[in-house]
């Protein structure tokens, strides 16, 4: 048994595959990770969501052995990595937020080199590299230098490099940021396939829709602290029970939220953009009385539409951060990089 493994179980037998308890990481005056605790089950696809600087990448670095926590405990595959960051690296595959393969090597050679880093023999890594190039739709580009790849191809090859050694757990840091829609779709499909094949996946993303579609459980992290963690279904349950409608009209200024609230006490009103009000109700919303009320006050209604709340709305409620602002900021940074 490898040192530190719990209850005599091998890595493959650990029911909780990643465990973080009270992780703290400080950089000078800034506390990047502040008492983070969570557990990821074996075979689970776990999402870690938060804005830039929330502590996502620092947490991944701690879990993968690229950083040491100032306090707290980390176990991966039952191995205690708190004092020895390298303890579980043979179980781990990492796809960083920036493609960091070797520009001077071809796609095939990059994969073979990454396989060699995990001790794979020549025949084994060459066969696996060919298989992955095919799976990731990169057979044609396999002989070309990585430097000449498009951004989407680079991401796909970086993911392939992360799984060349068939890791038990894969850490994916923002895998679809800054790439075209088709590549992003392809990557999401590949992630779903890996999950179906039984790989434990730890995914950080700022695309909340992506997390909603792929993940079984998610944690929201803001300013280094986890502010919510649950299954996607449980997180969505309260908002799915709500009925939401957005009404737009000429003259529908923010002051109308208060007027409407006193006239319709069962509903909650929230002014969105200029001329749009969101109505939230525990019961189905009857549009007739509302329309009459607004028209009597000279409001020319343009549109009324039912809204289906998503994980993004849950995120905004829990964290107070508008997710589209988070996405724009991340995409701007990806473009600049």
């Amino acid at each position: 048994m490898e040192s530190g493994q719990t209850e005599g179980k091998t890595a493959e037998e650990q029911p909780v595959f990643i465990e973080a308890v009270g992780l703290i990481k400080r950089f000078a005056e800034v506390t990047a990770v502040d008492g983070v605790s969570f557990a990821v089950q074996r075979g689970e696809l776990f999402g870690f969501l938060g804005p830039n600087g929330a502590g996502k990448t620092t947490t991944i670095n701690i879990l993968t052995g690229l950083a040491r926590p100032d306090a707290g405990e980390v176990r991966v595959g039952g191995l205690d990595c708190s004092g020895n960051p390298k303890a579980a690296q043979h179980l781990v595959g990492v796809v960083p937020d920036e493609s960091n393969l070797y520009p001077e090597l071809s796609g095939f050679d990059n994969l073979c080199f990454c396989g060699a880093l995990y001790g794979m023999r020549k025949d084994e890594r060459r066969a696996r590299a060919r298989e992955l190039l095919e799976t990731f739709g990169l057979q044609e580009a396999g002989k070309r230098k990585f430097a000449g790849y498009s951004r989407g191809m680079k991401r796909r090859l970086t993911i392939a490099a992360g799984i060349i050694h068939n890791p038990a757990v894969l850490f994916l840091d923002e895998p679809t940021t800054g790439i075209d829609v088709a590549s992003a779709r392809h990557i999401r499909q590949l992630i779903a396939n890996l999950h179906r094949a039984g790989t434990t996946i730890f995914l950080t993303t700022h695309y909340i829709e992506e997390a909603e579609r792929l993940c079984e459980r998610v944690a929201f992290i803001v300013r280094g602290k986890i502010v919510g963690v649950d299954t996607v279904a449980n997180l969505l349950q309260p908002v799915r029970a709500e009925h939401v409608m957005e009404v737009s009209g000429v003259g529908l200024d923010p002051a109308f939220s208060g007027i409407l609230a006193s006239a319709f006490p069962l509903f909650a009103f929230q002014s969105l953009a200029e001329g749009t009000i969101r109505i939230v109700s525990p019961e189905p919303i009857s549009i007739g009385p509302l329309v009459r009320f607004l028209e009597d006050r000279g409001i020319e209604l343009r549109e009324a539409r039912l809204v289906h709340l998503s994980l993004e709305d849950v995120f905004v409620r829990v964290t107070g951060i508008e997710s589209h602002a988070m996405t724009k900021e991340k995409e701007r940074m990806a473009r600049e990089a």
Partner: protein
Amino acid sequence: MRQWIAFWNILLKDLRAYYLKPPNISWGLLFPLLWTAMFFIRSGRGLESVHSLLPGLVTISVMFGATSLLAVSVTFEKKSRSFERLLLAPVPLELLMLAKTAGAILFGIANGFLPLLLAMFVADLSDVMWLTLVPAIVAIAVVSTFQGLFIAVAVSEAFEAQTFSNFFRFPMIFLCGLFLPVASLPIFLRPVSYLLPLTYGVDILHGAINGRNTMPFSLDFPVIGLYGVVLFYFSLKGINRKWIT
């Protein structure tokens, strides 16, 4: 075994990516050739001067060959984050860095043999103590490489690595007894000279080529070895402190 597969492939990758690239091969050849020509012409003593010039030429060739590329390549890989790939591999940091430096050591050794190869055509080297000379060249290559690694860990930009390397290399050339015997240096500079690892390497080369060593080999070899160990140890400490934050 698995870790040695990683070691061998890191070494091969670096040799292909950095050291065996045409510009580096030509630079590696050109540099020792130019040093040789420059000092040969400057000495003005014809073929008789070959023996006295060889220790200096070999040392400079090894030192520049071993330090130049490593400091820059490691800094570059750190900057482009491809170095993280190595840090994520399940290989002990010591072995990882030995693999990373092995290419530079080999390149330094190959550079060091060029002046010797040239000298073989123009001078009689039958009295050279090869069994002392070859380990000395290896020792100088190792200590120079680890010095390059130490510099790479200390800086964050490739241009800083070059500047910082020269800050060490050039004073060392003049103070280590390469062209001026340490005994003829001003008295206040002599202690500095004995603090430099190259002083001991050069002393072995003087002894192996001309029989004119000033210290016993039994002191030179352990001291240069100790410098190698200390530089490697502090480089690893630096990597642990700065790169595995």
